[in-house]
């Protein structure tokens, strides 16, 4: 059975490709998959069980089991699936672009349905159940551009998913009570506790799936789907899932009190209301849809009653309904395609022009009406017999069944008349003759209904093992001839009433309007309420203003953080020292002063410089705390940041715009001060909160023995917490790419950039590239020469930092930043030409190379048999250099170094060189415009 599922999945995935390659013929190939399943199933002996482990620690498994009912359903699902797929090859236009998608979803649905009927594990069943819902959603919404289709799809999805969720709760209650989720084991044990509630919940799922009252409204709307999909999903297979569940669980859950009454009453109501509504329809497809609703009600009565005879009748009806209803839908599809309408007021005289089609439809309708010797008759006779001998309640049910069946006869006749009869006042329509390949699928299904009726005794033989799961008198069988008795008499009555009703309607009596008291209005009101609530909530919380949102977050921080500090019971430290060294006071005072002035400054450059001073001050605090690596990195980052800001701020206005109003200024200040106080309080308490021994006391020894370095911070970055660093350098790569894409606005700009960089590498140029360029006039030649002379020394120093970082302050970050500053010096001194001369490479290339090296180091460790990013110690003796001891994580650090260099380079190219160029272009255009203005004068 697993093989069947895998085969279906593969076919679903391949379908779009196959359709693109073969066109509509691909559907015949695809139809082979369900056809093969059908053939395989036909020769299987139920029950069949397979179990595969799936999620062992959750107790979930792929427990598959095919009992008799599942066997029957699998035959229906695969057989009708194959026939409908073959039909699709003619239904869809050759070259329809949506066909590949349709075929894939269709087969995906077939997979889910197959899985649903063979699942033994309830959770697995639920998964397949919801998958059918999703695929059904996609098929109903096949024409996604039409609002009606989208709405119908959403309705079906919401209704059946809501029912499905209720069912899941029911499953969990059952599984929890029984201690296993495998249905075959649950059913073998006693009725678990709380089964009554579980039964109601499961009924909710089953009834909503099968479009039983009060959930019927979604099914007629679902007719927005293409007709083959309606034939398969909404007549033959998916809607049967609910009925199937009733049949599967009935043997056990019917013992729970609410099961029988709820199912039978809902079924009876649906049977009558559906039949009634069908009499009013003018669209043939809708007529069939309401007929389907009605028939599903009949099936629900049969399985819900849960007696032996009723179950036997239900199984036979399940088969016969699938055959005749799919056939009728296919017939409607043909009429729709050939005549261009499905409205029975417009169709006329098709019976004469398309006699074969009329014959096929007639046979199917006869089965639906229960005419002997067709399958429908066999099932209905048995169902009448099931309620023949009961008490008063059964009598009422029997009465309703007779009434419902009479309606079925009436709307069946209405269908035949509407589709094929010649109507007075209408000319006979000329129908383009449908090809045999188009007719054959429908004909096959109709004839199968006849065969199943004639082979009633064989059917009885294969279905009896299922019926025997139920209690009840064992004498009843499926047969064409039961002898003269009440059921046969009732059949005659049904035909008579049905005929009279239809004749009455034909005489022109208007069919009384019946407002189906459905849950549809509840559904609409609910969806509207959800929408309104979402709008109100969003409108109230998302005010669209960044300061407002940030303010709310900070106020929450103040309130929550502050109250936790005050009342949270955290131990407050007892003492307070002023400082560790007086130097801290000096650095702290600088930081405090600079920060306060920066916050009040209205000039961009002033604010920036003050923020930079803050950063340097913090770096000094790092040194005093015993963190030289931090201090080094902070100094370098702060310098790069200042350069960046200056590069951008030279283009922006001198002052910050839009001085906020007084009121908001006050609010802002209050929030700011409160946040500051809470943060200071946290700092005060946090010191005392450190109770446990820090994990890092154990870092020192492994840093040397495993990491091969003495600088714990650096070893941690490239080894102990290397994954963290990996994430960080990825962020840098993204940021650098983002900067470039924001500044180089068009792709031509990017191409020009590449050319410029390539052109600078030619040998024989001037020593100073800024050279005779006009822009060089603005630059100091002395500065250029000094920068040029210092450049290599600085780069060499950066490489030293990179490699010494393992044992002393430094490392890839610090080294990369120093190299970046060397490039910055060249750029500041000589402009973009000097920069390109200093680094004649594309920054993107460097970024990629760095990331490749870093990832490669990690992967190499894995290839060598270690963990990802694990480092190894290598001792080498090289000529000239002598003995070398290094860790492989040094390569990782090289990757980090390259990425940081590339980031700085990208910043210089974008925020520096490209802004220069854009400025030059703008200035030149302005000059030209001025000259043009002067000329005419």
């Amino acid at each position, binding site marked *: 059975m697993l093989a069947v599922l895998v085969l279906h999945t593969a076919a679903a995935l391949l379908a779009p490709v196959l359709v693109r390659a073969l066109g509509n013929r691909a559907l015949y190939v695809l139809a082979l998959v369900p056809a093969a399943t059908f053939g395989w199933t036909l020769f299987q002996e139920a029950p069949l069980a397979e179990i595969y482990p799936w999620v062992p620690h959750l107790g979930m498994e792929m427990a598959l089991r095919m009992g008799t009912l599942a066997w029957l359903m699998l035959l229906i699902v695969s057989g009708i699936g194959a026939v409908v797929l073959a039909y699709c090859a003619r239904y869809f236009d050759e070259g329809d672009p949506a066909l590949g998608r349709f075929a894939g979803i269709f087969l995906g649905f077939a997979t889910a349905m197959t899985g649903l009927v063979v699942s033994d594990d309830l959770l697995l069943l639920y998964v397949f159940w919801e998958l059918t819902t999703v695929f059904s959603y996609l098929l109903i919404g096949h024409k996604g551009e039409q609002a009606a289709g989208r709405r119908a799809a959403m309705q079906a999805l919401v209704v059946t998913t809501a029912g499905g969720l209720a069912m899941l709760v029911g499953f969990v209650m059952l599984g929890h009570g029984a201690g296993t989720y495998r249905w075959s084991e649950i059913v073998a044990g006693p009725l678990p506790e709380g089964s009554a509630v579980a039964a109601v919940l499961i009924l909710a799922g089953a009834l909503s799936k099968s479009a039983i009252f009060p959930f019927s409204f979604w099914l007629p709307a679902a007719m927005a789907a293409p007709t083959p999909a309606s034939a398969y999903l909404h007549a033959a297979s998916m809607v049967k899932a609910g009925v199937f569940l009733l049949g599967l669980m009935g043997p056990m859950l019917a013992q729970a009190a609410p099961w029988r009454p709820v199912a039978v009453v809902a079924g009876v109501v649906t049977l009558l209301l559906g039949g009634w509504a069908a009499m009013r329809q003018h669209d043939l497809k809708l007529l069939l849809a309401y007929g389907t609703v009605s028939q599903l009600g009949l099936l629900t009565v049969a399985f819900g009653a849960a007696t032996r005879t009723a179950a036997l009748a239900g199984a036979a009806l399940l088969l016969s309904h699938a055959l005749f209803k799919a056939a009728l839908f296919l017939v409607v599809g043909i009429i729709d395609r050939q005549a261009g309408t499905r409205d029975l007021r417009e169709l006329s005289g098709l019976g004469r022009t398309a006699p074969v089609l009329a014959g096929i439809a007639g046979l199917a309708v006869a089965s639906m009406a229960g005419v002997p010797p067709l399958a429908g008759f066999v099932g209905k006779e048995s169902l009448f017999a099931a309620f023949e001998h009961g008490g008063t309640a059964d009598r009422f049910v029997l009465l309703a069944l007779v009434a419902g069946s009479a309606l079925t006869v009436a709307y069946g006749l209405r269908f035949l008349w509407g589709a094929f009869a010649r109507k007075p006042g209408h000319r006979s329509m000329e129908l383009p003759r449908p090809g045999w390949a188009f007719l054959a699928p429908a004909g096959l299904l109709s004839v199968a209904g006849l065969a199943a009726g004639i082979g009633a005794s064989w059917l009885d033989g294969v279905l009896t093992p299922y019926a025997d799961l139920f209690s009840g008198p064992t004498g009843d069988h499926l047969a064409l001839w039961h002898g003269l008795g009440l059921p046969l008499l009732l059949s005659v009555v049904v035909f008579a009433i049905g005929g009279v009703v239809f004749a009455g309607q034909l005489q022109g009596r208007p069919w009384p309007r019946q407002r189906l008291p459905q849950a549809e209005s509840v559904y609409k009101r609910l969806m509207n309420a959800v929408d309104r609530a979402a709008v109100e909530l969003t409108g109230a919380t998302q005010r669209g203003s960044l300061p407002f949102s940030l303010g709310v977050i900070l106020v929450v921080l103040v309130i929550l953080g502050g109250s936790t500090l005050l009342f949270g019971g955290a131990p407050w430290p007892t003492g307070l020292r002023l400082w560790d060294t007086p130097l801290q006071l000096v650095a702290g005072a600088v930081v405090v002063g600079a920060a306060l002035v920066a916050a009040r400054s209205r000039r961009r450059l002033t604010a920036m410089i003050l923020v930079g001073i803050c950063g340097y001050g913090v770096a000094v605090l790092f040194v005093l705390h015993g963190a030289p690596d931090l201090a080094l*990195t902070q100094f370098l980052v702060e310098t790069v940041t200042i350069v*960046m800001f200056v590069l951008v701020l030279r283009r922006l206005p001198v002052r910050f715009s839009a001085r906020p109003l007084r009121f908001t200024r006050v609010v802002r200040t209050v929030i*700011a001060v409160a946040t500051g106080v809470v943060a200071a309080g946290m700092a005060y308490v946090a010191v005392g909160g450190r109770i446990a021994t820090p994990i890092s006391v154990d870092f020192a020894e492994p840093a040397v023995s495993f990491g091969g370095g003495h600088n714990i911070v650096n070893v941690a970055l490239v080894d102990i917490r290397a994954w963290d660093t990996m994430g960080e350098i990825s962020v840098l790569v993204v940021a650098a790419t983002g900067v470039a894409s924001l500044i180089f606005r068009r792709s031509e700009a990017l191409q020009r950039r590449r050319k410029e960089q390539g052109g600078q590498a030619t040998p024989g140029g001037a020593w100073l590239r800024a050279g005779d360029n006009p822009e060089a006039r603005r630059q100091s030649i002395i500065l250029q020469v000094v920068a040029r002379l210092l450049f290599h020394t600085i780069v060499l120093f950066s490489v030293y930092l990179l490699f010494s970082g393992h044992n002393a302050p430094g490392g890839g970050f610090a080294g990369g930043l120093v190299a970046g500053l060397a490039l910055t010096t060249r750029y500041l001194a000589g402009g973009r030409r000097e920069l390109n001369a200093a680094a004649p490479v594309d920054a993107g290339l460097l970024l990629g190379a760095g990331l490749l090296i870093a990832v490669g180091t990690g992967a190499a460790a894995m290839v060598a048999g270690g963990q990802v990013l694990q480092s190894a110690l290598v001792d080498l003796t090289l000529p000239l250099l002598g003995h070398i001891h290094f860790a492989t994580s040094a390569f990782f650090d090289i990757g980090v170094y390259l990425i940081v260099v590339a980031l700085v380079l990208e910043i210089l190219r974008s925020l520096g060189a490209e802004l220069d160029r854009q400025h030059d272009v703008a200035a030149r255009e302005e000059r030209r415009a001025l000259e043009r203005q002067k000329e005419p004068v």
Partner: protein
Amino acid sequence: MTPNLVYIVVIGVLFAAGVSMVLERSLTRVLMGMILLGNGVNLLILLGGEAGTPPIVGLGPDEEMADPLPQIMILTAIVITLGMTAFLLALAYRSWAMSGHDEVQDDVEDRRIMQLAERDQGSGTDDTDHTDAPPPADAPPPTDAPPPADREAAR
């Protein structure tokens, strides 16, 4: 550990100054506020570990070494801040080049939803009802409208 007053004051001031700048609309100013806030947060993390000699094995006795773990985290934070600063600066410049200023504007879609809420209407995305009139064409507010907070202040 006894708390150190200098650190506590510095952290408080950095947070306060940072927050007051972050709550503004000019993107460069917001960015500067973020940098100040970041420095404050880094110091706060640093306080979680003991001060001492640099965490380099062999420089001194292991017992006097500063806690390396907060330092490792802060180092990552510092460099990420650099990347973020570069990106936001580019964004600020782009905003200036396109619209002549670097201010963060109110979100137009948020405004539209607020107006729907004021008119007690649904979004119309639930697809159930056709009777709801579509939102009038002039629903999105002009983008240069003052922010709500300022509007209130003006009153």
